[in-house]
């Protein structure tokens, strides 16, 4: 059980009637012991599953060779998704007991499967349709399902259309958030700053049931060493069962929590070695061919390239000098700069999810209709799919329509998550287009009476080309002829990411198709009189591949960064001793506003990426983790004012913590 668990559903003619009736429900209950803290749950042996351990080399032996070893603890807080559209679903009863479900979900396939299970229907009886979401960020990957199933249950009982929509505070109180993590770390280095060994234990606060916690925990382990090579690693992670609503996917999916701990360890080690944390970061960046703790070697590794490009192009040493000068001449305002390198693996770590289907129709008028398993939630996946289809047929993109995501058109779809919506569904759409193109080329060859030379036919800018020369046949004529000659103008294709696998008995494998790298420089100014701060500017070099839609990718980097900055600074989820959420409104839970937003300057490395469609790279999640740097920038600025301050590595770094730190005496 958890605080906020739904136990009854009231169905009424109007929302206000339903709310009035629900308020009259009397519940007999008695209180049982409860726990809301991960470490306490761990102490009581309350686990979702046994711990997992990733290891590389031999940590125990490595400690002997270290010049300095530091240990510590960290905490990172929960984060509310604040998708502007709250959880919602609308269900229409159909003939023969079937249902049509319009759901705000990232997982139409999951909603279909669960409703079928709840109502004992065949999956053919449940059609789920998703046009687009008012934001998802992971919060509607698993957790849209409950509400859709409740509406489906009600609609099937009353045989009337039923809509459910959570109010903002219902949504905040009843749905899961980013997992809070506690961690213990121990890090050993030689005197130059080279990391020799790293040991870390993660305590994940899962909430009451598993949800996606174990997959998130696994990704925490995958990213325990972030963008660094560490020869000896032992990372342990355990998912702790508490009485909070089940925590769930949120952009980064356990990766940010892991990276925060390692950055804290590096920061503390830098203090012990009396060198700049950036020196340790630089010295230990992953290089081509070095292995991650799960055995996969880093290939096309751009950790160093992003770092150097950021240093050079954005003149970080000059920037640092300007900061030092500012600090020397300002008693009550202190600036600091922190760097944040990132490395994020792309693919679902549950290997079977790395598949997708697409269905392409070319209509007789030459317009093209695409269905696939990707849900649009603001990440621009439809724009990317549209560009892929327009590019593949070489037609104007306004001929292409990307349809709603619908389980009747695409079966067994994976959730739109793990940043791979465009990667997987784009490949499937590309394959479907190529099937149709083959038929079209045969038709063109027939029209040109050159059947034997069909491989010399191409289409460019809506015109048939032969041997590189334009012909008189345009797109519309070609399609019309294809139809009249009874050629297939529809195709379905399936794609499965090649070469990904993971052996959980050994905790080794190649779970990712590729990695995304990047580095951010974050500059802050702290008002040391009031304890308030401003994030001045964030400069990013991002390893973006050949973009499928440059304006979309830029927006993903900027938006992901902002959520990361919010997580580290002002987004502070608070519960009372009974696990009740205290800040269950947008008055009390503050997300970044336009005044909070820093200047953001992004440079993309537009390098080839043979591992993804048209050499692009996934972009949704990685930029979130740039935000982690702001914590360390704030700590540096505080220490400039108050050298006695020793950080507790407890995020978010709220203005309260900043002021208390500025005037702390130990």
């Amino acid at each position: 059980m958890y605080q906020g668990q739904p136990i009854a559903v009231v169905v009424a003619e109007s929302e206000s009637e339903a709310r009035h009736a629900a308020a009259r429900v009397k519940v007999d209950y008695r209180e049982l012991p409860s726990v809301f803290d991960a470490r306490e749950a761990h102490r009581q042996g309350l686990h979702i599953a046994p711990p997992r351990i990733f290891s590389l080399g031999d940590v125990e032996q490595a400690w002997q060779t270290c010049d300095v070893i530091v240990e510590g603890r960290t905490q990172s807080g929960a984060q509310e998704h604040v998708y502007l559209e709250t959880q919602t679903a609308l269900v229409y009863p159909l003939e023969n007991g079937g249902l049509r479900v319009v759901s705000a979900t990232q997982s139409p396939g999951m909603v279909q499967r669960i409703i079928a299970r709840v109502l004992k229907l065949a999956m053919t009886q449940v059609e789920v349709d998703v046009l687009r979401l008012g934001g998802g960020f992971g919060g509607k990957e698993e957790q849209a399902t409950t509400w859709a199933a409740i509406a489906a249950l009600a609609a099937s009982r009353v045989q009337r259309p039923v809509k459910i929509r959570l109010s903002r505070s219902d949504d905040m109180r009843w749905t899961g958030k980013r997992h809070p993590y506690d961690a213990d770390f121990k890090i050993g280095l030689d005197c130059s700053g080279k990391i020799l060994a790293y040991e870390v234990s993660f305590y994940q606060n899962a909430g009451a049931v598993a949800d996606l916690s174990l997959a998130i925990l696994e990704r925490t382990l995958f990213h325990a060493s972030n963008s660094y090579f560490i020869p000896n690693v032992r990372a342990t992670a355990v998912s702790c069962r508490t009485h909070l609503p089940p925590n769930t996917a949120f952009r980064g999916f356990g990766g940010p929590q892991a990276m925060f701990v390692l950055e804290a360890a590096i920061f503390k080690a830098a203090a012990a070695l009396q060198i700049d944390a950036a020196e340790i970061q630089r010295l230990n960046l992953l290089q081509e061919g070095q292995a991650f703790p799960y055995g996969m070697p880093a290939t096309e590794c751009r950790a160093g390239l992003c770092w150097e490009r950021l240093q050079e192009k954005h003149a970080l040493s000059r920037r640092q000098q300007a900061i030092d000068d500012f600090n020397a001449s300002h008693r009550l305002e202190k600036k600091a700069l922190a760097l944040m390198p990132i490395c994020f693996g792309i693919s679902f770590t549950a290997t079977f999810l790395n598949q997708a289907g697409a269905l392409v129709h070319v209509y007789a008028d030459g317009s093209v209709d695409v269905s696939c398993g990707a849900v649009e939630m603001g990440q621009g996946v439809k724009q990317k799919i549209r560009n892929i289809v327009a590019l593949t047929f070489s037609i104007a993109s306004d001929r292409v329509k990307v349809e709603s995501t619908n389980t009747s058109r695409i079966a067994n779809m994976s959730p739109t998550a793990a940043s791979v919506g465009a990667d997987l569904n784009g490949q499937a759409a590309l394959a479907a287009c190529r099937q149709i193109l083959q038929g079209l080329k045969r038709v063109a060859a027939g029209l040109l009476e050159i059947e034997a030379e069909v491989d010399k036919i191409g289409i460019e800018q809506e015109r048939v080309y032969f041997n590189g020369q334009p012909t008189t046949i345009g797109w519309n004529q070609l399609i019309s002829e294809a139809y009249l000659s009874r050629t297939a103008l529809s195709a379905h294709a399936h794609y499965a990411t090649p070469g990904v696998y993971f052996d959980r008995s050994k905790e080794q494998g190649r779970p990712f198709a590729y990695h995304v790298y990047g580095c951010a420089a974050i500059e802050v100014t702290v008002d040391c009189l009031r304890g308030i701060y401003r994030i001045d500017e964030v400069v990013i070099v991002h390893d973006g591949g050949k973009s499928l839609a440059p304006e979309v990718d830029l927006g993903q980097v900027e938006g992901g960064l902002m959520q990361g900055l919010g997580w580290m600074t002002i987004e502070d989820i608070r519960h009372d001793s009974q696990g009740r959420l205290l800040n269950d409104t947008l008055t009390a839970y503050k997300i970044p506003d336009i005044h909070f937003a820093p200047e953001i300057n992004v440079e993309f490395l537009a390098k080839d990426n043979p591992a993804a469609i048209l050499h692009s790279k996934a972009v949704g999640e990685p930029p979130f983790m740039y935000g982690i740097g702001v914590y360390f920038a704030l700590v540096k600025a505080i220490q400039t004012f108050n050298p006695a301050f020793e950080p507790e590595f407890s995020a978010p770094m709220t203005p309260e913590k900043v002021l208390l730190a500025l005037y702390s005496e130990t």
Partner: protein
Amino acid sequence: MTRLVLNRQLIEDHANPATVVLDLIRQRQGLTGTKDVCREGDCGACQVLLGSMRGGRLRYQAVNACLLPLGAIDACHVVTVEGLNGESLNPLQRALVDCGAIQCGFCTPSLMMALTGFFLNAETSNEQAAIDAVAGNLCRCTGYAGIKRAITRLCRQFDLAGSPPERRIDNLVHWQILPAYFSGIAEKLSAIAPRDAVEQSPDAVLVGGGTDLWATRPHWLHTQSLAFLSDSADGVRFDANDCIVDAAVTIEQLRTSKLFRQLFPSVTQDFELICSAPVRARATVGGNLINASPIADLAVFFLALNARLLLVSHDASRTVSLKDFFRGYKQIDLQSGERLQAIHFNRTAAQGFSYEKVSMRRHLDIAAVNSALGIEHADGRIVTARLSAGGVAPVPFYFEKTCAYLQDKSIAPATVLAAADIARHEIAPISDLRGSAEYKRLLLRQLIFAHFMKLFPEVIRWEQLHARQ
């Protein structure tokens, strides 16, 4: 019955006057471009433009439809995004699309309303002012960078300085920012006959802007008789040595009042922290005082001005000092049948005045601690001092003992340190969502330092305060 023009059409609606415009638009009119997200004025996703005839001219403001009761919009023009749409994207929509200001799209319609509101009202195409105009619109997707790019482009594209207020609507129609039907709205509104005055029930709930009432008690209001105050015509005025602020003045009217800016040169920036443009457009000064929240921004402001409240009933009136008005947590000295008419303070109190506010998010957030200090001084000595703070007591707090101590003291670091120490013992903050008691005590001290450092930068310097602690 409420009569209004909704986009292009005159409509009449018989719903309870407590019904909010958001529900009228979405549920009764089926216009779903306006989004229902937080219902307390924090996210701005339900913003609409509210137009009415004032001073013989049609004027618009972007307001939050979730906090706007039907009873307050009789004979007004309500514009939703559907009322801005034409056959193709207008230049504002085009800029949002081109500059990456849109991801999931849920905040976009209201962003359109806020931007259109800016173009209707701004004197010049100033980017910072445009950013303030959209600061009440939360976006979780874009990181605001695309929105800023769109604003930069639009401010360069359209020069508002050349468009006088009386021609603005026609200019915006010409620029295709507004559809052509806007040119006929003034006539349509003028044709709506004024309502007959109705006798108000003596225990009717007085509604100013309604921004707090509808955020906290929307259901209760449906069961009450409501009396809607009309817009303040008086606003801010000077009478001999007094400044008189009409209780029905909105925060935006106060912020932009020329007289008030004369007295408080930093008021434009100080009040930007208080609430977003669409809330400032509705929330009244009187409402903020009557609400009596312990962190009421304006209560703290006026306490340090030693303000007096003019309370009137149908047959009498009396004046009460603001510091005596707050009796306990959300308890005020207001009798049944009485209402707050105006706030008076002596203009000399505005000399030597400082306002400070610290909250989790710098802008548009509830204060952890806010504070104001007013000081009259001569020859390096304090004649009188008035210090107030919110978030440190069950009421907006006036520091009697600290003020008594400060009287006739020299303006010196030792005085400030002693005052901060006395203030610290006058308060009893509690640990809550806004911060721990320890934090609030420390923060109050810092804000007292900040007041003195701002007011007397030559005499009170940080080094001296810091060294002596």
